[in-house]
């Protein structure tokens, strides 16, 4: 389907994916290739299944059918190796949680800490391996939040919260970055900073995949666009995919959708897959 990308290595390959909440199908027959070392934008109307796709990629939701591989291996392997970083939407985080900015960003290192020797893993943060503290510091500097490291996360502004979530993903030093609306509701300086950080990551060879509603930003920065609304509605270059006609088609497809009764995820859920 996307012949221009077929000669490149796939960072993530999704084949025949179906996903549903309760009995409401959200994603159907998804075949996608996310090229390695590229910056991909996933675009689609609200409720199109973009976040659901990320839930399946991060493993917090089980697919009904289909397979996902990353660099040719089952994606679970890459997750266990700490190679998949995920930046949640701001609404998905409990900001009252009693942790500091530093602790939150350190959370991105927890996967790699499994490789540390046992005695380090049993000791408090002070004895963490220096590579973890360095990664956290570097990430905080990249998003310009080092001065706020000791503050509780609840005391931050909207843009700062986003930057902390990005820093947590950066601290992981993963090869694939999954970002769910990294630019939603941020102030212009934060937006500029986040886009600059992501461009640097891509230039460093990382695969960046983000859900976005920011069309001007996407047109300007990304290499590859995926249009999604329950089905894949198109993949290709930003020029082709983000043209007015294409976006109008996508909007029409979403009007067809609204006739179906969409069920939302319960806020307080007690099953482990949904937290």
């Amino acid at each position: 389907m996307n012949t221009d990308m077929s000669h490149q290595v796939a960072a993530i390959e999704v084949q025949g994916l179906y996903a549903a909440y309760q009995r409401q199908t959200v994603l159907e027959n998804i075949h996608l290739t996310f090229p390695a070392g590229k910056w991909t934008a996933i675009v689609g109307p609200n409720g199109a299944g973009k976040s659901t796709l990320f839930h399946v990629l991060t493993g917090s939701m089980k697919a009904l059918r289909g397979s996902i591989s990353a660099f040719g291996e089952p994606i679970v392997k890459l997750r266990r190796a700490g190679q998949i970083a995920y930046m949640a939407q701001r609404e998905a985080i409990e900001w009252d949680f009693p942790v500091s900015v530093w602790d939150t960003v350190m959370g991105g290192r927890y996967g790699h800490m499994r490789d540390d020797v046992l005695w380090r893993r049993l000791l408090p943060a002070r004895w963490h391996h220096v590579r973890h503290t360095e990664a956290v510091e570097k990430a905080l500097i990249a998003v310009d939040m080092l001065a706020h490291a000791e503050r509780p996360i609840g005391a931050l502004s909207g843009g700062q919260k986003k930057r902390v979530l990005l820093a947590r993903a950066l601290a992981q030093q993963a090869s694939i970055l999954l970002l769910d609306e990294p630019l939603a509701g941020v102030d212009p300086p934060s937006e500029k900073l986040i886009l600059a950080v992501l461009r640097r990551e891509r230039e460093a060879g990382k695969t960046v995949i983000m859900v976005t509603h920011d069309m001007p930003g996407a047109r300007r920065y990304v290499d590859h666009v995926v249009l999604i609304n329950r089905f894949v509605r198109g993949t290709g270059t930003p020029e082709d995919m983000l043209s007015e006609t294409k976006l109008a088609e996508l909007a029409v497809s979403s009007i067809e959708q609204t006739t179906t009764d969409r069920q939302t995820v319960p806020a307080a859920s007690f099953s482990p897959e949904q937290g």
Partner: protein
Amino acid sequence: MVDSMLIIESFSDALVSGLIAALMTVVNLLPSSVSDAFQYAFMQRALLTSVLVGAICGMLSCYVVLKRWSLLGDAISHAVLPGVAIAYLLGWPFFVGAFITGALTSVGIGAIERNTRIKSDAAMGLMFTASFALGVVIISKLASSTHLMHILFGNVLGVKHSALMLTFVASIIAILAVWLAYRPLLLYAFDPQQAQALGFNTQIIHYGLILLLTLTIVASLETVGIILVVAMLITPGATAHLLTDRFKVMLFISVSVGVCSAVIGLWLSVVFNVASGGAIVLVAFGFFIMALLFSPRQGLILQQWRRRKMG
């Protein structure tokens, strides 16, 4: 095999008497009007049991409060009853039966929630009352009503040596588990999706946490009983949440509140000759009210004062 069991038993016996001796040196520093009550062996057993239960309930309550599991804690504590009854029937250890029915109930809640249009609060209310009712029916058939009352409301002054040992072992397991799995538990409580993306098995963490909750509830049976244990799984954590923005400090405050309410409540129950479980929970609630009023950041009084100063 038998030899090693004996060794473990005598070793933990020695540990328990050591702990009691350590506690008593502290108690004996208090004025004799307080310490006199603790000169009897049954009071010393009650004291150690209360301290242990206060500590592990306080520890777990941080996770319960932050994960919004208060209602689930209530559900599990009720669901434990038939397990205890069946274990009693079959001569199993209480904990095994309690865990089986506790886990079955939480699985049932999840299944109803996922597969039907029934919401989670109704699913929980439905499952835990049914389970509790089953427990009441079984116990009414096989034991005296005083036994049922002790399970429901606790009887810390009548704690036997074997029950103290169970609480002791359960506390050690709970503390070790929280220590060894500190980071996965923290990440799971804060952001389960991130935990999943990092390749942690959240299913195992989820049921591990439920297992820890069940263990704590069973360990608290004799002290506060299954009706009131949920108070000890919420109040210390909620109090600590009002007082700090650091998770480790929250753990520390919560454990302190748990231990202090257990000890003060025990003492008050002896002095005023009232039910110990109720006294312990009321003292914990007193701590919560204090935090609610006087907490530096969240406290109502300082908030009022700040508002007035600004206006």
